[in-house]
């Protein structure tokens, strides 16, 4: 009976959601990475539901069949040590399932950690996303512009986010484009995403970071490359330049609205020198130069665009 109520509960809650509301964000992907993840999630929910149902069925069966009120008063349950074959099956089936999941999991790991395959032939757009208490700074080194708390991205093109933080560990997450990754103060992490279609999406910091954490969100707008280029051009015309003093002011704890600047902070306030999976222990100094070089390279790219 316990089981029945639990099952009913599950069905009930799923039903309310499926009928009443929009599709769940994570299961409503707008990009290849999120799609892969949603696929894994649905797959695992399916197989896992099967396991749950099997266990429930066995449990209900034995509870009904072997309850004391049904057994005769002089029934003495037998002494059974265990059976090699039964136990082998109990080990074998989970091993088969786990092996299957392991294969899927490893494949997916390499897929989400790499440039999206669908757009493998395209040059990725690099965006530096850094968090400070409680906002996000997005630097577009190629376009040489920077925004606060909102993100414009072109569709049908891989986007490589470089993540780091000017404070506590945060987690950069756009559920409909793909899973999250930490932004930390002593390492730059990389997250590969891409958007398939234009539209607005929610992005947020998912990792608790203090008082202003709940509001630590940003808007994501995906648009065609053409619109994106037009937006960049507009920004360059209208936005004021980002100076070191201005940026330091932005870093102060608090909430800010959306802001737009020309220039980025990468020159005067470079990201941490350690990179994901890079060799730790490099001294500061030369890495600054490499960043400067990189910035130069990127401004070259810009001309092509």
């Amino acid at each position, binding site marked *: 009976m316990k089981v029945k109520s*639990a099952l009913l509960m599950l069905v009930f809650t799923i039903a309310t959601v499926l009928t009443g509301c929009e599709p*769940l964000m994570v299961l409503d992907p707008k990009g290849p990475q999120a799609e892969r993840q949603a696929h894994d999630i649905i797959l695992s929910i399916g197989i896992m539901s099967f396991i749950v149902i099997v266990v429930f069925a066995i449990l209900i069966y034995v509870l009904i069949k072997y309850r004391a009120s049904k057994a005769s008063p002089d029934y*003495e349950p037998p002494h*059974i040590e265990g059976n090699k074959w039964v136990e082998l099956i*109990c080990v074998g089936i989970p091993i088969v399932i786990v092996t299957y999941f392991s294969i899927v999991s490893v494949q997916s790991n390499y897929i989400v950690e790499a440039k999206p395959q669908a757009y493998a032939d395209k040059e990725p757009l690099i965006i530096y996303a850094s968090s400070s208490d409680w906002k996000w700074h997005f630097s577009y080194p190629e376009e040489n512009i920077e925004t606060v708390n909102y993100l414009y991205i072109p569709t049908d093109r891989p986007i490589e986010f470089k993540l780091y933080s000017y404070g506590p*560990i945060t987690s950069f*997450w756009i559920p409909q484009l793909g*899973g999250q*990754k930490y932004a930390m103060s002593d390492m730059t992490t990389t997250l590969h995403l891409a958007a398939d279609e234009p539209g607005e999406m929610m992005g947020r910091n998912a990792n608790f970071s*203090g008082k202003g954490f709940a509001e630590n969100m940003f808007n994501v707008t995906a648009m065609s490359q053409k619109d994106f280029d037009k937006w960049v051009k507009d920004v360059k015309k209208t936005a004021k330049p980002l100076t070191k003093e201005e940026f330091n002011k932005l870093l102060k704890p608090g909430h800010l609205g959306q802001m737009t600047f020309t220039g980025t902070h990468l020159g005067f306030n470079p990201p941490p020198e350690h990179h994901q999976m890079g060799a730790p222990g490099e001294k500061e100094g030369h890495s600054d130069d490499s960043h400067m070089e990189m910035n130069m390279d990127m401004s070259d790219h810009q001309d092509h665009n």
Partner: protein
Amino acid sequence: MDFFDRFAIPNPSIAIYASMVAIGLTVVAIIAGLTYFKKWGYLWREWLTTVDHKRIGIMYLISALIMLFRGGVDAIMLRAQLAVPDNKLLDPQHYNEVFSTHGVIMVMFMAMPFIFAFMNYVVPLQIGARDVAFPRLNALSFWLFFFGAMLFNISFVIGGSPDAGWTSYFPLAGNDLSPHVGTNYYMMAIQISGIGSLMTGINMITTIFKMRAPGMTLMKMPMFTWSVLVTNLIIVTVFPVITVALAMGTMDRLFGTHFFATTNGGMDMLWANLFWVWGHPEVYILILPAFGLYSEIISTFSGRNLYGYKSMVASMVIISALSCMVWAHHFFTMGQGALANSFFSITTMMIAVPTGVKIFNWLFTLWKGKIRFTVPMLYSLGFIPLFVIGGVTGVMLAMSAADYQYHNTMFLVAHFHNTIIPGVVFAMLAGLTYYWPKMFGFMLNERIGKWAFWLLSIGFCLAFFPMYITGLDGQARRMYTYSEATGYGPLNMLSFVGAGVMAISFALIVYNVYYSVRYSPRNIGADPWDARSLEWATHTPVPEYNFAIEPHVASSEAFWDAKKKGHELFPGKVEKIHMPNSSGVPFIMSAIFFVFGFSMIFSLWIPAIISLIGIFACMAHRSFENDHGRYISVKEIEETETKLRGVN
């Protein structure tokens, strides 16, 4: 007045002032009551100085229940705040403090003492021993835990509570971003009670290896004892890790070092690694004794031996080994790359195999049994389906690529509550009901108990299943509020209702204790459940020496053999019994630890140094003390035995 400013609460509110008054009144009431009924001497002689494992077990139990109440109030506050969008019940600072203390209290100061309560009370009885290997050390463990818990709890009214989550990730928990003393409390309180846990680990391992009754080989130990052995091996392995991590964190906060800071080479990721190297095995420290309890209970109320004893033992050993190899799954998203994530993903999923074996073994124990639906059995039967749901969502979370989407969301919150509540809390309530007659000499009322069970199960489903859905809909954990546009409102309201139902169920359990104290019959005998292992072979209430004659054992179900197969459990005759003396030193030493911790928290160096000297003085006193214990004479034992036989 600068000196006193530090003790003030940085963000006072009515709730905090009310608790100040409540705490003050409770303390006054306790002191007045003890004085009025002239119970100070009794309290000191019989409880504060006791080294009896049974009394220490009961004190653990009471502390755990009090902490369950405190952690539960926190939980209700959290759910109430999130029940509707844009709620203003708690401000972000308070919300952060409440969820931080909720986590720490439930894991460190509720679940840990709860399992220690059963370890202490049951294990010596189950292996036919007179006490644990080091009774004095055992008292010290308890009092260190107790004063650690008290230290943590006063943070609410003196100086402010920790607000960086129960994981206390740096640099958020560092001085720059958490300037008030809350996180100091976290560091010191867990450190002090953690030392106590480590000592319990050493004590229990020695007890189980060295004090088993004649004939009880390792593979003839009852399953609960096995689970405690494995658990304590994990404790000894991983508690030193958190000791070091907490010491480093304390130094960062108090002495200006740069272990986890963002400057001068500090590494915030190191804290996360050290924390979870301890933190993941920690949840197995909680769940394995729970598995042990379920094994005892399911076997008892199926009227059958436990199916697959050997594979049960093997699976626990494998789980314990794997538990130390999976810690990075708590931060797949830290950017270790696909290779490391794949490794930890696979090791994590592998835990599902031995756990699955255990579930099947329990099911096969029910098979061909004669199942009695008592309250302990109901909890154990409720555990199986609910824990399976928690377990399979664990496998889902273990898929690291998908975890990028679950991480830090309510899905994760739902998962770990779905394992810990049906896994640990149900086991503790089952164990509480199961061992209550042995501890106190009367049974808890079954009817009220069944009501409590059903309410708890339904409340649990209502409270936590919606979180799976809001998690997939992008609700991050630890957000103090959300806007209406997100659409999380209705499901969070459902969670709040569920939390309320769970609260009613806990209130019923308390009422059940009151009701049973008043109305339950007292002549229940030594074996009210028709159980199978040694702890039921001795009298109720258990005499201080446990067994007048050392039991001799031939299987893992010695008492059952004695009842059904005519196995002679107590050959030989009564001899004088050596027992340890009571001592006030563990209590005093732990109280000094409390002063030390408090002084450190507020950087009061002089009292800190003085109390440190006091701690070493206590140790020196113990070293020079000439205490050989005492003997209970044969005459005394026989008198007690006759009297107890009369009772039953």
